[in-house]
């Protein structure tokens, strides 16, 4: 058995630091927590892997006429709308599913600060991931055009690229919100796919069968409103639709979720 030596408490109290833990420090630790497990590491790696695979697939299978940067951006963008929300969900729900929240929320006894740090960390990862993915697309477009012997077509403006990024970040934040709402990894992940796949399909079906809903759809179907971010720059009406849909499906549930997180028990 090891012998233990303890600093006398009197001395400890002298060296005691009374400064509050700054948010950047919490954020840095939360970022580290997204990478420091095997599953976390591979989830991050899957961003690069998925971007590479999508690029290669586009070079191989897209018709020569379609070998434009937009095709690459779109092909890479899709897996991002799946992986980024999973990263965001797990960053939140891990505290409950893995029960590490017992330590996290004790070391930082202000849950909104921890959540804020997690959101900053997730969004940072999302932005870096999108920059990496879009850069891989640039390389893909150069190589793809060269292989096919066609001229390089750069049909994505800077603003459009920002829109694609914004669209992906909205997916990521939806993941964060669902994580906060359910605080359970499986439930939140299933909920995300209901959100991203089932609801849009049902909304689409409803729009084709119900005349009245067709006019309403752009305002209340988040996926539909969001899809225009990936298509190109938004019109004024489309921006308004997006703002309303985001408020209904993301902001309001997030407010409820934050309330639940603040009052819920961490066991």
């Amino acid at each position, binding site marked *: 058995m090891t012998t233990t030596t303890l600093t006398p408490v009197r001395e400890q109290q002298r060296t005691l630091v*009374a400064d*509050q*833990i700054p948010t950047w420090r919490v954020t840095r630790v939360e970022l580290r927590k997204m990478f420091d497990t095997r599953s976390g590491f591979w989830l991050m790696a899957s961003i690069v892997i998925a971007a590479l695979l999508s690029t290669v697939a586009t070079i191989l299978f897209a018709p020569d006429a379609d070998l434009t940067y937009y095709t690459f951006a779109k092909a890479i963008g899709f897996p991002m709308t799946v992986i980024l929300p999973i990263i965001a969900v797990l960053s939140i729900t891990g505290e409950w599913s893995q029960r590490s929240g*017992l*330590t996290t929320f004790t070391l930082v*006894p202000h849950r909104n600060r921890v959540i804020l740090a997690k959101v900053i960390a997730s969004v940072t990862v999302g932005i870096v991931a999108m920059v990496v993915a879009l850069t891989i697309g640039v390389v893909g477009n150069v190589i793809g055009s060269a292989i096919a012997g066609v001229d390089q077509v750069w049909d994505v403006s800077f603003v459009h690229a920002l829109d694609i990024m914004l669209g992906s970040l909205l997916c990521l934040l939806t993941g964060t919100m669902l994580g906060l709402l359910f605080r359970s990894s499986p439930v939140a992940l299933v909920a995300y796919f209901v959100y991203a796949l089932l609801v849009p399909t049902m909304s689409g079906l409803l729009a084709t069968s119900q005349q009245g809903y067709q006019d309403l759809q752009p305002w209340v179907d988040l996926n539909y409103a969001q899809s225009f971010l990936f298509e190109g720059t938004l019109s004024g009406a489309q921006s308004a639709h997006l703002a309303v849909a985001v408020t209904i499906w993301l902001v309001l549930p997030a407010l409820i979720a934050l309330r639940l997180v603040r009052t819920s028990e961490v066991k």
Partner: protein
Amino acid sequence: MITIESLSKKYGGRTVVDSISFTARAGRVTGFLGPNGAGKSTSMRMMVGLTRPTSGTATIHGRRFADLPNPGREVGVMLDASAQHAGRTGREILTLAQQLMGLESYRVTETLAMVGLTETESDRRIGGYSLGMRQRLGIAVALIGRPSVLILDEPANGLDPAGIRWMRDLLRGYADDGGTVLLSSHLLHEIEVIAEDIVMIGKGRIVAQGSKAELLRAGKTIVRGRDMPALERALTASGLATSYDQDALSVEAEPGVVGLVAREYELALTELRAADGGLEDLFLQLTADTQREGKAA
């Protein structure tokens, strides 16, 4: 110092913690004793802000836990050693705590050594840790910030006898250096060997509290003499209730009183001591109430 005042927690109509008040003082080890489900863990979670009390307050050095600027450097907490991501290594978990608290990085290696986790062990994922190793890591997370207060829920769980001995020495040293130690257990013996002050809780209420010495003194005396019938007559004649406890006499009085009676009647005693077991009886009674075996017996 930890001060608990009228702390209560209700879930719907069910009262889990019922207006408990006690103080864990600096320089002493306070044992929080009670059967499983008595409300110990809920009380401890309320102390560190993980559970909102229905009413009452818990303060550390006079401040609410949430008002501590960097709680890890003032209060070392271990509520459940297994509540960590199984995919992280022991060293990584400790590093996260070190970074969050803003400590020097050498503290990680230092603390791992202090709790007796080897280099190889600390570089393994905790999914493969034994309960004892998790317990040591949990203690490391609690100690790394050099806190002056420790709140530990069942810290001896899963430790082997040598580990329990180590834990006892560690906590003893901590209290001797002026630290406040509050630890819970559902085992009377564990608390008896470590704690100086005991708070006993059953069904959410405090049923007994005080120093171990006070609580162990049941007010009864065990006495043996060369002439037992004469001793019994003498004690009865002095108005003391006696009964045979195996071949000794159990007397409803302090040992000092029994000694005086023996001198008065010029009886030679072979044994005279305060009966322990008052605490044990109380604890068994508490445990029996919450266990099926107790009801069947």
